[in-house]
């Protein structure tokens, strides 16, 4: 009994590994995000080397938004490295190397923030809503100006597989009903 007490306490208050909670969602390959400040996890699958997802974000005012891209930790996706590029006003001009990798032409007057997701050792996280383990590029805050932006998700090296794009800061799970979760459960579940 004396030994059990510290074990129980350690389990209750033990060191916690990084874990995240975002509002989950799926959708078409090109879609509008109504409230980009809401913490959001967009689930998708890159099915071939030319596959591309485009999310449209519209800001009434400048805002620094954290982004990260995650891949479910499965052996078959160990080499799957999807990337994302944010295209919009006020962002730096892309380098030639970035332009060579981008799947589309950058609109005139727009800049690009490019996340190459090329860290040798990717961080692991435990997503607490779906109880899934992911590799993550690591969250990075990007200062976005007022206006329309696009987030492109693609795989420059042609790898295919599932991904999750996480962004936003405000926790808001209102409106996420059981129907939404159960209808898309095959996407969220292992």
């Amino acid at each position, binding site marked *: 009994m004396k030994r059990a007490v510290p074990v129980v306490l350690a389990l*209750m208050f033990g060191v916690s590994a990084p*874990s995240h909670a975002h509002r989950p969602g799926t959708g078409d390959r090109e879609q509008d995000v109504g409230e980009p400040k809401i913490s959001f996890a967009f689930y998708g699958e890159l099915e071939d080397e030319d596959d591309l997802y485009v999310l449209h974000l519209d800001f009434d005012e400048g805002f620094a938004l954290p982004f990260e891209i995650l891949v479910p930790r499965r052996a078959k996706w160990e080499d799957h490295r999807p990337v994302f590029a944010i295209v919009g006003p006020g962002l730096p001009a892309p380098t030639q190397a970035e332009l060579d990798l981008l799947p589309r032409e950058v609109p005139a007057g727009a800049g690009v923030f490019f996340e190459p997701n090329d860290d040798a050792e990717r961080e692991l996280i435990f997503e607490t809503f779906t109880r899934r383990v992911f590799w993550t590029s690591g969250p990075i805050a990007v200062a976005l100006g007022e206006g329309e932006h696009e987030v492109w998700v693609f795989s420059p090296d042609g790898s295919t597989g599932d991904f999750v794009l996480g962004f936003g800061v405000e926790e808001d799970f209102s409106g996420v009903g059981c129907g939404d979760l159960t209808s898309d459960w095959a996407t969220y579940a292992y």
Partner: protein
Amino acid sequence: MLTSACLLGVLALGPNEEAAAGPPPELTREQGAAAPEARRGVRWWDTPMGHPSRFSAGAHVESQLVGLSFGLRPELLYRPFRATRGFNLRVGVGLLGGPEFFYLPVDVGWRQHFVPHRILTLELGAGYEQQSFFVPQLGAITRAAFYAEGGVAFRVISRGWLGVQATGSYAPFARPGPGLGLRLGFRWNFGR
């Protein structure tokens, strides 16, 4: 659903051992005054608090659907009031493993067995659950949650029930998230 409810009601109205035994004999005023020990024998606190008849043990095979894992869920039930009634305090531990983590939930709560002396009983419960996830290459992730459960049990032998349950949980504080599991298992009543 209506048909199922009717069937449940018919089965619940099965043999009733207490009714078959008849009502306890009534004492006259003189008999009651002369034999207070006999009157006290029908009170629930006459059964010692540690008597085996107050305890039940269960073992279930469980599958967690939120975060895939499978394993065992042993539990201990204690009836603090009438040993023959359905109000139970419950302590349970889960030992489940899956492709992404090992899961160790510890429950403390309440479970009610409705019509506990019938062949078919309805079970409902709720309580607190401390959930611990052990992920390879990550530290232990623990969180506080609350659970609710419901199921039915069928008495297969005099003191043993075979049952199925569904259990849901939600962790509302740090590291929030839901849980959903299904159990199939056996419960044994000690004592009488």
